[in-house]
C-alpha cells in the first residue's frame, strides 16, 4: 500500500484549471521527486497534499486513509510534515524553541496552561537531538532570525523532522542555497531516505536526480512524464524544460 497516494487530483481556481487529473503514489521509504517549470502547478499540488487547497475532484490518501479536504492541521496530525519554499520559521524563537513546538509530545500538551514549558528538559533534549541531525547543535540557542540562510534552511528541515512524519514534503529545499549548501542538504536528505517517505519539488535537477527513486514531471497542470531518473534523462519534456543545473 502506498504511503501517500494522490488520485485524479483536479483543481480549478475560478475558471482556470490549475491541476488536471494528477495521480501520484509514493511508497514507504521512497523519495519521489517532482519537477516542472514555474507555474506548472507544483506548489498547488503540495497545497492539496497538505490540506491548504481543496481539490475540486480527486482523493488524497495517507497510509490508506482518505484525507481529501481535511484542514492542514488535521493532515499534519496524521504524519505529514512540510517545508515551505518561502521560509516560514518562528523568527522570534530560538532554533531549539522552533523545533520544540513541532514535537508531537509538545503539541499533545498544547492546551496546557498551567505547567511551564520553558526549561522542560525532555522537550529540550528531544529538540537538541533533532538539531544535531541537521548539524545545528551548536546554534540551538540562536534566535532563528539571526541564523544565516543555509542554517535557516536546515532549521526548516529540522522542524519538519521533529514532527516525526511519515511523509515529508519539501518545497524547493535548495532554493537560495549555494553549492556548499546544496551538497550539505543532499547529504542530510540522503540520510533520511528509507526512514520516511519524501516528496520533493525541485528545480535543481542534479539534486533531484541524485536522490530520487522516482520522478514525476508536472507541466501545465498535468503529469507529463513519470519514472526512474535514468529513464527520464532521455525524456524530451525533461530536456525541453531543463531549468536546472544538469550538465
Amino acid at each position, binding site marked *: 500500500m502506498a504511503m501517500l497516494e494522490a488520485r485524479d487530483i483536479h483543481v480549478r481556481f475560478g475558471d482556470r484549471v490549475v491541476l488536471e487529473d494528477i495521480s501520484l503514489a509514493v511508497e514507504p521509504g521512497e523519495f519521489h521527486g517532482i519537477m516542472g517549470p514555474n507555474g506548472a502547478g507544483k506548489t498547488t499540488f503540495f497545497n492539496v497534499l497538505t490540506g491548504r487547497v481543496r481539490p475540486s475532484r480527486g482523493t488524497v490518501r495517507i497510509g490508506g486513509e482518505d484525507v481529501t479536504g481535511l484542514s492542514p492541521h488535521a493532515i499534519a496530525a496524521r504524519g505529514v510534515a512540510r517545508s515551505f519554499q518561502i521560509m516560514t520559521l*518562528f523568527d*522570534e*524563537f530560538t532554533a531549539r524553541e522552533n523545533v520544540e513546538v513541532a514535537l508531537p509530545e509538545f503539541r499533545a500538551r498544547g492546551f496546557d*496552561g498551567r505547567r*511551564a514549558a520553558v526549561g*522542560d528538559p525532555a522537550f529540550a533534549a528531544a529538540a537538541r537531538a533533532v538539531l544535531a541531525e541537521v548539524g545545528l547543535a551548536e546554534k540551538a540557542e540562536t534566535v532563528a532570525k539571526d541564523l544565516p540562510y543555509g542554517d535557516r534552511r536546515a532549521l526548516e528541515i529540522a522542524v519538519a523532522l521533529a514532527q516525526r512524519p511519515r511523509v515529508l514534503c519539501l518545497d524547493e529545499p535548495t532554493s537560495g542555497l549555494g553549492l556548499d549548501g546544496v551538497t550539505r542538504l543532499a547529504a542530510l536528505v540522503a540520510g533520511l531516505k528509507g526512514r520516511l517517505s519524501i516528496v520533493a519539488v525541485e528545480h535543481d535537477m542534479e539534486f533531484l536526480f541524485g536522490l530520487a527513486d522516482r520522478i514525476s514531471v508536472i507541466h501545465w497542470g498535468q503529469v507529463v512524464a513519470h519514472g526512474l531518473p535514468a529513464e527520464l534523462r532521455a525524456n524530451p519534456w525533461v530536456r525541453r524544460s531543463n531549468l536546472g543545473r544538469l550538465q
Partner: protein
Amino acid sequence: MRTPPHAARLVTPAMLMVGLVLATVPLWIAKVGLYPYLGVEILIWSLYALAFNLLLGTAGLPSFGHGAYFGIGAYAFGLFQFNVAANLWLCLGAACLAAAAAGGLVSLFISHRRGIYYAFMTIAFSQIFWVLAVKTHSVTGGEDGLLKIARLPADFGVAAIDLTSNTALYYFVLVVFMLGVVGLWRLTHSPFGRVLSAIRQSETRAAHLGYPVRRYKMAVFTLSAALSGLAGGLFAMAQNSAFPDVMSLHYSGIVVMMVLVGGGLVSFWGPVVGVVVYLIARDVIGAVTNAWMLWFGLLFVAIVLFKPEGIAGAVQSGRAALAPKLRRRSPPLAAAERG
C-alpha cells in the same frame, strides 16, 4: 543540563517586588498628591490590560472592541446583585461567565481570521453590544446607567470584610490582581502560551505543525474576555455603577493605547506600565490641561511609528545595552517570555 530560567517559577522576583510595592501604596499615595481610589483604578485597569494583552501581545490578535467584555462584566455584576444574589463571589463569577459567554460567542465568528478582518469584526461586535446596552433601557438603564451597585463584603464564612472604604477595596482588588498576574504569567509561559506566540508569528506554520489554530484563537479570546469581565465586575463595584460608555469604541481604544505605550508587545508587565502612565497623565496632566488625552494619543502614534516596543521595551533594551556580559549568561528569551 542548564538550570531552567526564572520563567518556569510560579512566582518571580519581579512579581514579589511589584506585589510588595503595591501593598504599600495606600500608605503613601495621599502624600504624593494622589488618592487611594486611583490605586483601585490602576489595579482594575491593569488586570483588564493584562487580559487584553493575551490577545494583542501574545497571540497577535487585534481586538479593537474589547470594552464590550469589560462592560458586560460590569453589567452582569450589577444585574446579578440586584436580581439573583448579593454575594460577592457569585457576582464576580457571574461577571466572568457572562463575559466569557459573550467572548466565546464572538470568537466563533472571528477565529478563522486575523489582521484587518479580525479588527473590523471585533469593532462590529463591540458596536452591537454597545447599542444593545444603550437601547435596552429596562435592563441596563440605558444611558442613565445601572446605579446603586453595592460594594459587597468579602465573606469568607468565618469572617466578612467590609469593602466600602477605598482602602479595603484596594486590598481586595490587589489580591485578585496578584492572583490574575500569577495565572497570566503562568499561562504565557506554558505550552499554551508558546503555541499562541507561534500562531502570532506564523499561523500557516503552526497549522502545518498540526495545531488547530482556530481552536486556540477561540480559547484565548474567551479567556481574555472572561478576565476582562472580571475586571469589569470589580469596576462596577468600585464605581457603584455601570454605564454603557465603557463599552464604547473610544474606551476600547484606550486599553489598546495603554498596552502599546507601556510595551505590551514585548513585555509581560508592559500593560501595567501603560495603565500607570495613562492614569497618572489623566490626573496630573489633566489637572493642567484638557488636552492631556490628545497628548497621550499623539504619544501612542509616536510609539507605534518609532518605538513599538514601548516603555517596557525601551527599558529592556537599555538594560541589555548596559550589561552585555549578563545577556550572554541568560540567553535571549522569546518575546512571550520576557518579564
